[in-house]
């Protein structure tokens, strides 16, 4: 990246880049064909039929050259070609929108004008993102102020980063190297300074990098600490003390669908947990009263992400689709950091504590 002073085509460094480039090639070909067709015809007609005297040509009867047929032909062919573009683009987009279930979690907080990035294992960095090659990386992103956009041209993907909600982006780097991160949604004075670098590393290098990181514990552990510090457990209980009655227990709820008081249903995901912490009365689970106070102002965006991650680590009920056995590398990478999880009581029917903890720590 850095050493190249001039290039005409971006690096292609993610699993999706190839298909985007393929679609691009198709579109360039179609566009070039039609642009040239029109240009050649216009120039040719302009020369061939250039007026030589003051006479006016006999009107061309549209029917004699098949006017209606022509109109249909030049409507239907472009429509067909462009619907191919739609279908092709939509299928790529669908892939881009649906992160693989076992993707590695990274948390991104945008802030005027920097990117704060937290790894699940606890490592934190600013305007830099270190990731291992050939692993699916899932970014859960939010903003502390205005709308930003996390854009990595070499990965051909971007997504807006909004205040007040979580957005998701994922990619699978396939080339070692360093690539630009750009903020692609105008965010104020130093918008163009809100850039960073993705370092795609080999697996061993990445583990080495991770090991040299901070010792604050994993995201989930830090989230648990916040959870206890804010006294959430007094009501929501924990895995051992499951039923305190007044508040829903949070073990195993992530990814499930719950009934709400007003008769509707909602899926327990990152956004819902976030909303429930900040606006506890917005969607109350059926059978409970609105006794929870808001934690708006008490938690930073980083802190919120940690608590959300902690609740996620409490996992879905066993057998829920999201719990996939961790890969061996993950186990080594997270072995030491999973230990403090022992502080949390790990009993209780229907919960596989070890798996739950590791699922959360991936």
């Amino acid at each position: 990246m850095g050493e190249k002073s001039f290039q005409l085509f971006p690096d292609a460094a993610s699993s999706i880049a190839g298909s985007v480039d393929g679609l691009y090639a198709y579109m360039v070909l179609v566009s070039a064909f039609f642009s040239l067709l029109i240009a050649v015809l216009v120039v040719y007609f302009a020369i061939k039929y250039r007026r030589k005297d003051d006479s006016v040509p006999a009107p061309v009867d549209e029917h004699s050259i098949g006017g209606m047929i022509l109109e249909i032909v030049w409507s239907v062919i472009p429509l067909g070609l462009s619907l191919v573009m739609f279908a092709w683009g939509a299928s790529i987009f669908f892939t881009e929108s649906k992160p693989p279930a076992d993707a590695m979690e990274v948390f991104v907080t945008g802030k005027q004008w920097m990117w704060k990035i937290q790894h699940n294992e606890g490592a934190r960095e600013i305007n830099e993102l270190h990731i291992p090659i050939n692993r699916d990386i899932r970014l859960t992103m939010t903003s502390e102020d205005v709308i930003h956009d996390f854009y990595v041209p070499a990965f051909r993907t971007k997504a807006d980063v909004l205040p007040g909600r979580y957005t998701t982006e994922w990619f699978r780097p396939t080339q070692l190297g360093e690539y630009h991160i750009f903020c692609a949604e105008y965010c104020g004075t130093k918008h163009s300074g809100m850039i960073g670098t993705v370092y795609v590393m080999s697996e061993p290098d990445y583990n080495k990098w991770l090991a040299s990181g901070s010792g604050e514990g994993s995201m989930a552990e830090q989230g648990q600490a916040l959870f206890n510090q804010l006294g959430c457990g007094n009501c929501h209980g924990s895995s051992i003390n499951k039923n305190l009655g007044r508040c829903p227990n949070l073990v195993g709820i992530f990814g499930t669908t719950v009934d709400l008081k007003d008769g509707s249903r909602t899926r327990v995901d990152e956004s819902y947990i976030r909303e429930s912490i900040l606006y506890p009365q917005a969607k109350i689970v059926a059978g409970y009263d609105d006794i929870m106070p808001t934690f708006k102002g008490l938690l930073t965006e980083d802190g919120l992400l940690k608590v959300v991650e902690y609740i996620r680590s409490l996992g879905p009920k066993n057998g829920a689709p999201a719990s996939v056995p961790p890969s061996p590398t993950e186990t080594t990478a997270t072995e030491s950091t999973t230990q403090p999880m022992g502080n949390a009581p790990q009993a209780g029917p229907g919960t596989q504590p070890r798996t739950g903890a590791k699922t959360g720590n991936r």
Partner: protein
Amino acid sequence: MITTAPPAVETKKNYLTEKEGLMSWLLTSDHKRIAILYLIAVVAFFFIGGLFAVLIRLELATPAGDLVDSNTYNKFFTMHGIIMVLFFLIPSIPAILGNFVLPMMIGAKDLAFPKINLLSWYIYMVGGVFTLYVLLSGGVDTGWTFYTPFSSSYSNGYVIAAGLGIFINGFSAILTGLNFIVTVHRMRAPGLTWFRLPLFVWAHYATSMIQVLGTPVIAVTLFLLVLERGLHIGFFDPAYGGDPVLFQHMFWFYSHPAVYIMILPSMGVVTEIITTFCSKKPFGYTFIAFSSVAIAVFGFLVWGHHLFVSSQSVYAGMVFSVLSYIVAIPSAIKVFNWTATMYKGSVRLETPMLYAIGFIGLFTVGGLTGLFLASLGMNVHLTDTYFVIAHFHYVMVGGAIMGFMGGIHYWWPKMFGVMYSQVWSKVAAIIIFMGFNLTFFPQFLLGYMGMPRRYHVYPAEFQVLNVLSSAGASILGVGYMVAFVYLVWSLKFGEKAGPNPWGATTLEWQTSSPPISENFEVTPVVTQEAYTYTSEEVVHVV
């Protein structure tokens, strides 16, 4: 098409000379004079907006931010966007050429509501004054899109004044659109049925539909934005529980169709020019007419393609994407029909025709690159990069401004009764075409490489293409200046033009140049379809 073509009576005063003095202009209700008032104001805004474009390209000639600081740069592109989009492109063709020509084309003495027409000019000027106030007092740095919560809670610029300026200006567009709709329905000359109307009128009718239906939504959106910023009443800011994506929906509900407000009139102009300079009926009249209406109607269904990466739902994105492809088809139909019109025509490469041909080429590129952006998977990579900038400049500068320049050159002899220099005008047209391509084609490449828009400083590998683009911009600027100079020159020193220098068949050419205040000595009666060329009728004067 015409049965009454009164000869220009030399003694009769025309609309320019009938009354004199500044007040006779400021209080006029003559659509032609109002068109001239618009011409002066809109061109002034064009040069202000152009000045910002020059400053932007100067700054971007080097990767570092060495000409101005980031804050100033952000104000530059914001002011460039606001002025060019809302104070130049949207009023340009409808309020100047439409105002001047449309009533004459349908054989009317004036628009249906002449006073409202004058009022719309004053509203435009008041909106403009707000914008100039913003400009002089320190500018606004939100980008012309005013995305919340940046605009409502974080920006340091004069957002409220700018928002009010646009809000006020919106009513000018609404009133013009309203006036056109009523005029086309109620003021047509006897015998002028819908399918005898010149296609320019169809295009303006479609444009007016968009203005009337879309503009109120941007007005209320900005109204809410101003409330949120001024009174801290939450509508869109998540800090107040709002949804910033809702702002984007409401903003683009107008602002995407607004693109068609800019391009449809231009398409109408190009249709007129091509038929005149091929002396031939346009190929597929009904298809061109209905494609204008189709663009106006379908144009309202596609705004969500600006929101593909904004956390809009994936399914909504798919609907918007497929609809965006459908709205591309009417534009394609127009391009093919124009090309087919030239087939076996009698082509004269006068200046307006050069612009029309340039329009076809550039609009084709602009339209086709729109297909890239309508595709979801491609859009994710390209949105908010220079690819988007290049695309919409191909449509708006390559399309709308080429059409505007073509139209100005086409109707200049009608408006002022004088002819400009044929040599210089052709030179300028070619300079503008070359300069334009050099400016904006490199931006497609920049965009695919990932250079985001609205970047003040950029990584070094983007420099070569940026330098090319800046070089092109200076050529483009020279082209516009040349055109400005010889056009102004022609007002004083230009040769007299006859009533119908191009041998056109539409009604406005059947009266004197410049026209009398009532447009026609006798209300014309139309007995034929539009664009009926026969050898006897064409008077070739130039």
